[in-house]
């Protein structure tokens, strides 16, 4: 463990170019996937929170179950679609960062949708009468609830990001862990583990955790002043 910490500090201190390339790709892939998943997932979550339709209960159960999608299964499904012999093979996206973004988006959209649905539905219960007296349409209600719940929803987005940046099964299959092209933190950790270089693998793991900490601290810094204003 001490060896791993020393190694991690050494990698960061000497500005290891390979490490920074891998870190940047991890952030680019997972943050893009989180952004896309938020657009899709928050819309779906807000819709499910305010809409009432037959089969809604079953839809919620299904959505909640999809939070448990195994990354390796998502990777396999995306591989089968993006493979040259698959329906989307003509796009030539397999073994590119875009394929990794697609896989992580599929993986975390249900998480963002299911958690935001719960957050927004709880808020909606508070505001439903008010919305009705104001005569808001469903879309206006959804917009108002998404804005009002923005701080809780940031945490939802962070849950999605955490899942995306930590998973290895999906990006390994659709990215291929290609050096200088699709290698990210988790696949690099898996590779070093398989080479038996456990201290380096652990050092990379520590760097990954620090990055996750940094992203979450950044989000916290964004929301603190906003929250103060909101509650003033």
């Amino acid at each position, binding site marked *: 463990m001490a060896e791993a910490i020393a190694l991690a500090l050494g990698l960061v201190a000497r500005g290891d170019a390979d490490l920074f390339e891998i870190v940047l790709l991890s952030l680019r892939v997972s943050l*893009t996937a989180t952004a896309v998943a938020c657009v899709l997932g928050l819309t779906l979550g807000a819709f499910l929170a305010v809409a009432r339709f037959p089969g809604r209960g079953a839809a919620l159960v299904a959505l909640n179950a999809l939070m448990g999608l195994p990354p390796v299964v998502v990777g396999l499904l995306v591989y089968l679609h993006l493979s040259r012999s698959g329906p989307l093979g003509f796009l030539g996206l*397999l073994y590119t960062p875009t394929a990794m973004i697609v896989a992580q988006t599929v993986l975390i959209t249900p998480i963002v949708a299911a958690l935001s649905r719960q957050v927004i539905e709880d808020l909606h219960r508070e505001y439903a009468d008010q919305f009705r007296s104001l005569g808001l349409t469903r879309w206006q209600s959804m917009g108002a609830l998404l804005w009002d719940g923005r701080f809780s929803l940031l945490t939802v987005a962070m849950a999605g990001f955490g899942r995306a940046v930590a998973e290895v099964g999906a990006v390994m299959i659709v990215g291929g862990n290609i050096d200088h092209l699709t290698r990210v933190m988790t696949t690099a950790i898996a590779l070093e583990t398989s080479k038996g270089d456990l201290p380096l693998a652990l050092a990379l793991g520590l760097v990954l955790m620090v990055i996750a900490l940094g992203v979450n601290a950044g989000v916290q810094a964004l929301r603190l002043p906003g929250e103060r204003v909101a509650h003033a």
Partner: protein
Amino acid sequence: MKLIKKLAIASTIAMTAGGAFAESIIVQSTTSTANSGLYDYLLPIFEGETGIEVNVVAVGTGQAIGNAANCDGDVLLVHAKSAEEKFVAEGGGVMRTDLMYNDFVIVGPTEDPAGVNGTDDVQGAMAKIAETGAPFASRGDDSGTHKAELALWNSAGVDPKSASGDWYRETGSGMGATLNTGIGMGAYVLTDRATWISFENKQDYDIAVEGDTDLFNQYGVILVNPEKCPSVKAEEGQAFIDWLLSDEGQDAIAGYRINDQQLFFPNAPE
């Protein structure tokens, strides 16, 4: 609106950065060649001379052949001759050529529970492991090493599958992961020598069985068939194969050493 614009820009950047290299090929290959560091040594030489970027996907031989059969790659570099020949016969590849070889070894713990240390009779050693019920960790993943191991059990007259979960433990993972697991449980492991030499978590393990001619491990290289797979970059892929088989490529393979040991021995046909 702003967010959507940003997303559109981000995804455009992602796409152009990902797939726009005109001269890059994908090589479907094995974990043993990648984990041993051979590509890190060879590819900069080739890329420097030709400007063709080589992207390696390192998986087990079975998965590599499967991916190539789906047209997801330009060149296949693996080590399971009969499976490779079958792949070519089915129209997946253009031609298979011998490239290089190394050998398999059985590694084991120093206490040597099966009493096989130092022997060069691999079938005898495997029969002894089965008799004593000493743990043996198998890849169990349809890789080239796994196929070679199953052929050795067969010629040793042992059916290890009947002891699966008992002394015969199939990890279903790559060479390095299987070594980590096997060493963790005190099991014997069949591995290629290149992976073993470069493996860094050996603990108290050493080579127990080596030197049998049956442990020969041949690598072959194949261009994925551009007639079956129009996406194949035949020209660049063939340039890579030609370079590997040339005197220069063969010398480069022979020149790759770790701890003063040569890992791969070139044997392309003259």
